[in-house]
């Protein structure tokens, strides 16, 4: 890996690690596209876009399995150490987070299909803003991974509060609409779920960023201040 400009003496090993890295980047790019499409499909009530985005998830699932297999093979055959070991164990976790983000985007697409006949959606702007923040978090987490940039990863972690805050505001706004009339309740519940999934995507992006910090610094920043003394 690129902890420094030096390469592994064993070039095949070097190529295997590069392959894991490339697969993660491709997978992350696909997942990012899924988030963007899902929210766009919802906003435009575009069932066709929603369905094609659900199709993309199969590729993400396949990428998860293939990357897992590749990492296990490298662990078994190379017994990696130090930054290589951190990189590979991180990759194994990263694919899981990415795959789950893909699943959440699929959930949103399914809602887009359910809601295609609705003429309007309450506060879609807020939802759209949440989606933008969540998607940017995923993109920055991956950029931080590619550039080994712990500062950028920390910014992703900090931005999770913004998504959480938007979620709470949105939750209350939609609740207020539901209180006004029973006819709004089903639509309201659907759309609240979408907000919840976007908030979960933010959490997964935070996980990714924490893993990047571990890879770069060798320091575990998960659950800081939240563990038993």
């Amino acid at each position, binding site marked *: 890996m690129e*902890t*420094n400009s*030096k*390469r*592994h*003496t*064993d070039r095949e*090993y070097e190529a295997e690690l590069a392959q894991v890295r490339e697969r993660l980047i491709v997978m992350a790019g696909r997942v990012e596209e899924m988030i963007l499409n899902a929210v766009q499909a919802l906003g435009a009530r575009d069932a066709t876009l929603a369905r094609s985005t659900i199709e993309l998830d199969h590729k993400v699932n396949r990428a998860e399995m293939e990357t897992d297999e590749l990492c296990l093979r490298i662990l078994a055959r190379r*017994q*990696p*150490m*130090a*930054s*290589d*070991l*951190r990189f590979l164990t991180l990759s194994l976790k990263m694919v899981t987070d990415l795959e789950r983000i893909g699943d959440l985007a699929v959930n949103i697409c399914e809602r887009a299909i359910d809601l295609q006949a609705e003429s309007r959606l309450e506060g879609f702007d807020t939802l759209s803003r949440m989606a933008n923040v969540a998607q940017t978090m995923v993109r920055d987490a991956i950029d931080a991974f590619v550039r080994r940039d712990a500062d950028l990863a920390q910014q992703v972690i900090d931005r999770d509060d913004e998504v959480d805050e938007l979620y709470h505001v949105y939750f209350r706004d939609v609740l207020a609409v539901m209180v006004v009339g029973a006819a709004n309740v089903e639509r309201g519940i659907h759309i609240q779920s979408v907000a919840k999934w976007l908030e979960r995507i933010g959490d997964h992006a935070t996980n990714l960023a924490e893993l990047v910090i571990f890879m770069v610094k*060798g*320091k575990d920043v998960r659950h800081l201040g939240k563990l038993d003394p």
Partner: protein
Amino acid sequence: MNTPAANGRFEVTDLDAWFSKKQVLKHVELALPARRITAIIGPSGCGKSTFIRCLNRMHELVPEARLAGRVLLDGADIYAPGVDPVLLRRRVGMVFQKPNPFPTMSIRDNVLAGLRLTGAYDRGRADSVVETALRGAALWDEVKDRLDEPGVGLSGGQQQRLCIARTLAVEPEVVLMDEPCSALDPIATARIEDLMSELKARYTLVIVTHNMQQAARVSDRTAFFLDGELIEVAETNSLFTSPQDRRTEDYITGKFG
């Protein structure tokens, strides 16, 4: 920490060593805690074997070899005038790369050889010394019925454990192991590694190994040497996951040469 309960603690200060004009150790500062396993790793020629040979005064046996600095064992300088190297080597035993039982001796006599050489042989205690040492080296059950057969008739792994028994028979405080498994198959290696974790309760162990996975498996602490310098020493758990020095990182991830 020089309490009687923790004998076998080394403290090495500013150690330099030479073969003729070539300096092979440079200003090494390293403490080896009692009753723990310290692994010494590093590429060929980095000085790791020389380092442990300075711990039992074997370095000076090589013509034109010399050293400077201080090596304290439980607070006492092992190079102080009046220290008998032979007696020191009873306290600080060594196991070598190739199993080297004495070819003409029986298993039993091999175990007793160290005691005979250092004049500590006691005929009355011989049987119990042999049994204790062979049990300590996890070999007793395999050889108890053929103690009078030649030591060289054993398998490679058994011969290495016989050499460990020979080392333990003189009741050392420290056991130095220089690539003890490099001539052994994986099963024999696993036996020695398993034995090491048992021996740790009673002895300070220092193992030189080329096999990083072995260092990671068996040791509590690991020291990385490069070009005669100690680059980094740390708890094994952290050295192999998050080394602090770039050179350690490069070596253990295979980015050398």
